[in-house]
């Protein structure tokens, strides 16, 4: 809490995020989806639905890649012989 109170927006990094920094992946992917759909689609009808679907799909794929790396680091690597 004290970290937020002392924070100066736009000048200091938002250190109060702590270990939750990876959640910023969601707004980042949303921003990319907003721009991608704006230039890619022929019609703007149903635009926000397609943005939402792309955001969910891209985040799910990134989450699966993260899970694969997690399993590799914590399950596969310990099985490797060190000698």
């Amino acid at each position, binding site marked *: 809490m004290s970290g937020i109170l002392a924070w*100066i*927006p*736009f*000048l*200091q*990094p*938002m*250190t109060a*995020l702590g270990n939750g*920094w990876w959640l*910023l992946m969601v*707004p*980042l992917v949303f*921003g*990319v989806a*907003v*721009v*991608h*759909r*704006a*230039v*890619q*689609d*022929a*019609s*703007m009808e*149903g*635009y926000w639905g*397609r943005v939402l679907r792309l955001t969910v799909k891209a985040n799910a794929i990134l989450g699966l890649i993260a899970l694969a790396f997690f399993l590799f680091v914590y399950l596969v690597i310990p099985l490797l012989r060190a000698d």
Partner: protein
Amino acid sequence: MAQQSDSVDGPLNWFPALMGWILPGMGQVLLGHRQRGYRAMGGILGMFLAGVLVGGVDCVDRREDALWFYAQAGAGPVAFAADWANSALLKTGKVGHLIPSPPSNPRLPPPQVTSFKTVTMSNEIGTLFCFAAGLMNIVVILDALRRQPASPKAWTA
């Protein structure tokens, strides 16, 4: 699945593309594709401002992080404004204060860095947001370069 958007093989829209660099999405607006342009503008400026909010202006640095800046500069003058704010406010010590950092060359005096400089994930994620905003604006500029004007009244070459 929506169809691909319309583009032409005719003359390139150089002026809207240039305006799209100055203000993201403005190229599409000038060509009569207002909704498209304003949405692209919101996405790019939103990502860039989110990056500076999360990482601070230190995440846009033309001198120390030149490779990142080449892509961030795609977002237009807003990237240069953030770099200027970084140089004018943080690096001069007008905001925060300057502290000596470990020198890379022991024969030289220790360089002074701002007390607001960090190596946290927030700073890196902020850099990434601004980087993504710059890259996406390059996509939007290329789209404006080839997009067919919405009506004859819209800007034409």
